[in-house]
């Protein structure tokens, strides 16, 4: 208690949440209503001071994303056929091959977009969800930043799927060369979508509740 107080000293009073002020904000149009208002008077959206099932949904989507991420790495992402030679490459396999070819830059991009970002996202979302519950000592601003980064970067991990989709559409030269998406492409796309949904379902207001809890 005392340690927390020390850590949060000087900030507690700076933050005044809507709930504490007896208000509820509309997440759609931003209009503020009294706390017990059910429906936004302006846009008609349902008003909730805190989304109680938010964390549940975050975890559900996150787990779905994780589950989808496993076949995305095990199965081949890209099936290339050149002169009858069939080649299947997984995400990591492709990165290693690119490294072998000396294309460090491309390898790095693919690695970051397909491995670092999704895994980082999993970790970030999981950390956010846990830290919100466990009222960890982490700075609310840090959590807010992490959340924003996750929200922003989430779409960029689709880069791999885009590459595969474009290649598969363009390179269809029958026997000479053809590129087809593998099972992993679908899995990976689903995994990214699930994590994005997971991030979206996170109610960022929960980040600040930790302070309230600290105070009361």
């Amino acid at each position, binding site marked *: 208690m005392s340690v927390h107080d020390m850590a949060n000293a000087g900030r507690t009073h700076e933050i005044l949440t809507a709930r504490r002020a007896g208000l509820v904000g509309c997440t759609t149009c931003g209009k503020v209503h009294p706390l017990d208002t059910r429906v936004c008077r302006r846009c008609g959206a349902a008003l909730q001071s805190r989304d109680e*099932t938010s964390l*549940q*949904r975050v975890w*559900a*989507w996150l*787990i*779905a994303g994780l*589950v*989808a991420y*496993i*076949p995305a790495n095990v*199965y081949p992402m890209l099936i290339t056929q050149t*002169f*009858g*030679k*069939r*080649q*299947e490459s997984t995400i990591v396999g492709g990165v290693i091959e690119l490294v072998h070819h000396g294309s460090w830059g491309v390898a790095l991009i693919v690695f970051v977009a397909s491995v670092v970002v999704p895994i980082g996202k999993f970790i970030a979302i999981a950390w956010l969800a846990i830290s919100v519950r466990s009222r960890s000592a982490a700075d609310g601003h840090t959590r807010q930043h992490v959340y924003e980064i996750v929200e922003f970067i989430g779409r960029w991990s689709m880069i791999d799927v885009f590459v595969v989709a474009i290649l598969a559409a363009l390179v269809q030269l029958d*026997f000479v060369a053809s590129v087809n998406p593998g*099972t992993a492409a679908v*899995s990976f796309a*689903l995994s990214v979508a*699930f994590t994005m949904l997971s991030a979206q*379902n996170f109610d960022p207001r929960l980040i600040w509740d930790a302070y309230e809890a600290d105070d009361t």
Partner: protein
Amino acid sequence: MNDLIEPAEPDIEPARRGFFRNLSLVWLVPIAALIVSLGLAWQSYSQRGVAITITFPNATGVTPGETVIKYRDVVVGTVEKLTFTSDLSAVVVHARVDKDIAPYLDEDAQFWIVSPKVTARGVSGLSTVLSGVYIEGAWDETPGEQKYSFVGADGPPLVQPGRPGKRISLITNDGRLVSEGAPVYFHGIEVGRLEKPRLILSSDTIIVDAFIEAPHDRRLTTATRFWDTSGVSFKIGTGGVSLDFDSLASIIAGGIEFDNLFEGGEPVGPGHVFNIYPDESEARRSLIARTPGATVTVAAQFDESISGLEPGADVTYNGLKVGEVKALSAKAEDTAEGPQVRLFANLTIEPDRLGLKAGATEDEVLQFLEEAVERGLRARLATASIFSSALIVELVELPDAPPAKLDRTAEPLPILPTVPSDLPDFTATAEGVLERINKLPIEDVLNQAISLMASIEQVVRAEGTQKTPDAVLALIEDTRSLVNDEATRALPSDLRAAVTDLRQIVAEMKEAGTFETLTQAIQRADAAVANIETASEQIPALVEDLRALAAKANSLQAEELIASATRVLDSADKLIGTDAARELPPALTGALEEIRAAVAELRKGGAVENLNATMASTRDAAESVAAAVERLPELSARLERLVAQSEALIAAYGDRSEFNDETLATLREVRNAARSVSQLARAIERNPNSLLMGR
């Protein structure tokens, strides 16, 4: 007292929200994702093939993860990795094959690497040029005890496992005759393939397995012989020149043909061993060896040179091969005149070729030979053919040969008595014959024949002969004009009146002596016929000459014979040239002239009745001519006989070899000349009028 019993304050607790009630439906998403993922995993696992290993001496072009295993050109597996055996002696290919295929991979499964190959029979595996090599597998259609490690083959198996047919072994001494995959033909149709030939360590023999496809494998019997058909064979022999070659593929890759060379062979089982013979004739000759081991070997001692006799040479009995010369040896023997080298030939004799039953024992064969020797059976050297100096041994029966016996006690082999051959004289005889032939005045004979023909032609073309038809024509013309004469035409109408007139005319003619003139004309025609007969009378003399000639020909003196023939031809020539013969046509013409005169007179006289009589006379004359000519065939027959006799004489000198043919051809020319004479004669005989009317 006022104690109001108040109900106890109930413990009010907020309704406990059930855990599941609180649960969001979103949880279905990860559950679904999990189920799908697990499904994928299970599917992958269940579809994952069975791991097998295939060992290859080297794995050219095999790439892990890329190279596939195909069965009937359908992908059934993939190579996963390549390792070496522990001693690095081979490459182990680890692969996975489809689960539903795996049960079929039993003892008979075979794998080989397919790569592009260009052979004499075509290009194969061309598709692998672009796609890289693949491993092809072959196995039968029945699941067996499953195997997981295999030894790869060098190439496609000769026979796809499970294919009906028969596998046999062929033995040869010449590996050039056979090559792997070479076709096996039956009457030119491919019915099987050869496998890889291999040299047997213990001997020089090369053994090659062959697979004959069903149903042709039923043709394989103990009567079957295989021979090589590859390449080009060129042979010159007594049978002429023969050039044989098979298909281009078999020239390059070799080919084997087989056939059943005799009836009644026993069917053979798989694995039967056959020999490959260098060619068909060799294979046919080999029939003698069809019961190997049942031969009897005897020795024959020759006092003369056996140069030209080689092991393998035929032993014939009346021209039929009954065995062969197995070995030649020399042996020093002490004789009264000191040590002497004797030459022996070991003869292998096939009892069943001699007509003995196939299972005859050596004793029985020797017994048979012994009796045969008593009857005069002797061994003698002979030439294999007129073109070569190669010798064969022939068994001949000479009943008047000096008595001899089969020496059964002789060591190491029983000795068959021999008689000296007439070989050494043969060449001299042949030369002598050739010389004599050279000396024959063949050209003179030909010239004589030609001049004879010319003379005959001259007679035929002689003016008189040519004129004859003219005369006849004129006669006919006259006759026709007579018939066309109005007077003649008027005959039928005036017949009744004319008959009475005729009688009168005849009476008048008798008085006037017209009849006498007619008789005279007929007499002259008779004289002409007599002339012809005189001419013909000289023919018997010619025939006499010919007879003498034939007699001389019988005495086998070719030169004189030819001289005689020449003389005969001279005589014939002379005969044709005689004045009498030449006069014949003019005489005929004369006769016709007379007839014509007679007709003219008749016409003048207008006596139709007498015309018939005149014509009858003319017919008589023609018949006389025919009778005279009848003897001509006899002449030609004589000539022909002469030729035949000469031919027989020449034939007596030897076989119908080339030089004989030349002579015979010459003689045939002469005979043709004779035939021409004969034909002329026959033509005249058949149609005597042709002499008068032309052809």
